[in-house]
């Protein structure tokens, strides 16, 4: 009897301490997450420009989205960016990691050289690349001219502008490289030795051992990369401002414009919720598809 009473007291004390320790986060959860989430959902059904009191409009914002060309345009631009930027970054990062994955001299130097661009603050890299893409004096145009080829309007041509921003995003492929390199180092050497005895060549070893064993890492980077790229903002805000012809108007830039340039807080909130749903949907599809190509529990 006394024993169980003591146990009860200890458990209660542990519970109180638990809540105390969790309380900063719990308060933060309520103030900075739950309350804003509910408010955001509420605003998405309202018309609110800050100056006048918010007005309930039901589903009007969501209906407007469907007929809003710029919404579809920004969604298309963002999907285009994600579809090219994410896989290309992964392939490039993996390719460099494979080249570095031997007992090679100066690996630390290479690793640093490839990694440095991905730590450059995005505002700085955007300004730098705007200059690299300069139509007359930029280094890229002059490089293309070296081969007597006409340089495209990197940022002025609606078709090229998106591709240019994708090219710029590949400059940060080094951050993935470091992760793949660590993943490759985790693969036991004995696997390769066994494959060599079976007569596998370099390509056979890559497709039968390396690639399957690194798929969990690739998958994780794919998910993170897609979620991150879907929220691409700063590059287009600084370099192109969404132009030319809205060809680099990305989803979050359009959301930002609605909220902080046009002060359409309700409409921007609806955009945010649609973004949330899209990201959840894409992640869910990715998880479903993962079963087909991701190898688990092989190591």
């Amino acid at each position, binding site marked *: 009897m006394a024993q169980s009473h003591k146990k009860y007291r200890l458990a209660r004390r542990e519970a109180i301490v*638990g809540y105390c320790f969790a309380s900063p986060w719990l308060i933060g959860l309520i103030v900075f997450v739950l309350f804003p989430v509910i408010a955001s959902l509420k605003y998405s059904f309202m018309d609110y420009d800050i100056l006048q009191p918010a007005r309930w409009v039901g589903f009007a914002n969501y209906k407007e989205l469907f007929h809003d060309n710029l919404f579809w345009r920004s969604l298309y631009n963002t999907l285009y960016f994600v579809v090219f930027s994410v896989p290309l970054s992964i392939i490039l990062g993996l390719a460099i990691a494979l080249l570095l994955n031997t007992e090679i001299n100066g690996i630390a130097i290479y690793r640093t050289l*490839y990694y440095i661009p991905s730590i450059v*603050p995005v505002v700085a890299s955007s*300004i730098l690349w705007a200059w690299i893409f300069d139509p007359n004096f930029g280094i890229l145009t002059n490089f293309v001219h070296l081969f007597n080829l006409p340089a495209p309007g990197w940022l002025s041509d609606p078709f090229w502008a998106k591709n240019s921003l994708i090219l710029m995003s590949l400059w940060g492929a080094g951050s993935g490289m470091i992760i793949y390199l660590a*993943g490759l180092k985790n693969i036991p050497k004995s696997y390769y030795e066994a494959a060599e005895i079976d007569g596998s060549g370099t390509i056979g070893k890559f497709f039968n051992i390396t690639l399957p064993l690194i798929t969990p890492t690739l998958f994780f980077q794919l998910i993170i990369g897609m979620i991150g790229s879907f929220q691409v903002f700063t590059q287009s805000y600084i370099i192109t401002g969404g132009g030319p012809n809205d060809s680099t108007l990305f989803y979050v830039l359009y959301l930002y414009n609605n909220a902080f340039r046009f002060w359409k*807080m309700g409409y921007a*909130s609806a955009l945010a919720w649609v973004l949330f749903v899209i990201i959840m949907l894409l992640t869910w599809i990715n998880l479903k598809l993962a079963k087909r190509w991701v190898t688990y529990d092989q190591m």
Partner: protein
Amino acid sequence: MSQIKTQPRLIVEKINTTNKLSVRSVPRHIILIVFSFLFVFPLLWLVSTSLKTDLQVFIVPPELIPKPFVWKNYLDLWTYFPYFQFLKNTVLVVVLSVAGVLVTAPIAAYAFARLRWPGRDFFFLILLGTMMLPSQVTLIPLYLLFSKMGWINTFMPLWVPNWFGGGAFFIFLIRQFLMSIPKDLEESAFIDGAGYTRIYTNIMLPLIHPVLTTVAIFQFMGSWNDFIGPLIYLNDQSKFTLSLGLRIFQQQSSQSQGEIGMMMAATAITVVPVIIFFFLAQRKFIEGVVLTGLKA
């Protein structure tokens, strides 16, 4: 830490790999050098442009190495670009943010990893759920909340939220680390009469040092590079962080043509602190990227 690896290393394997050096790796080195040049070149181009006069900038084809080197941009810059003011603001925001995360994230992680309290598992699911929530969903209500509180044009919106758990991802990361610490450690401390706070500060905190370093580095980079936060909340130039200051400087420069060299100089000195930080913390930095990147 808790796992002991006993993998006998084959001596043969070592000999084999050292033999592979030199001749066979030459093509590999060539490809790596060419590629790494592509990665480093934009930064060299940045420095090169920053050392040119406006006239040199517009030479076609461009001079890769300026003839002569001109330091004028760096000397003139300070009158137009209050670098040290921006730097001071950035450091202030970053230090307050990192401190907030380091103080409050491990506390919450400890509660999730080592303590039993009603609702813990439910709240842990919520924690995981908030990791999926894009920040744009809460952006507008938070802006309205902070403007009601009179926090617009102050640093408060940029660091205060970090003092409330410091973000779901960091709590999750530290929790995973805490879970791997054997139970016996705190049980013997309990028998010795230590309370939860003592166990936390004397046993747990020293043990989770590596993951805290990772968290600090990530928060440092996140706060330092943050752009949309300062863009929305800060109005006065005296309050700008480096990222926002550089952006405004770029806007002003592009209106008055022909200041590319100076703009590149401003960009270069904005990048320098991050690169210094990277080299100071390089090993921890890369360990952290790998730790968070390999598995969730």
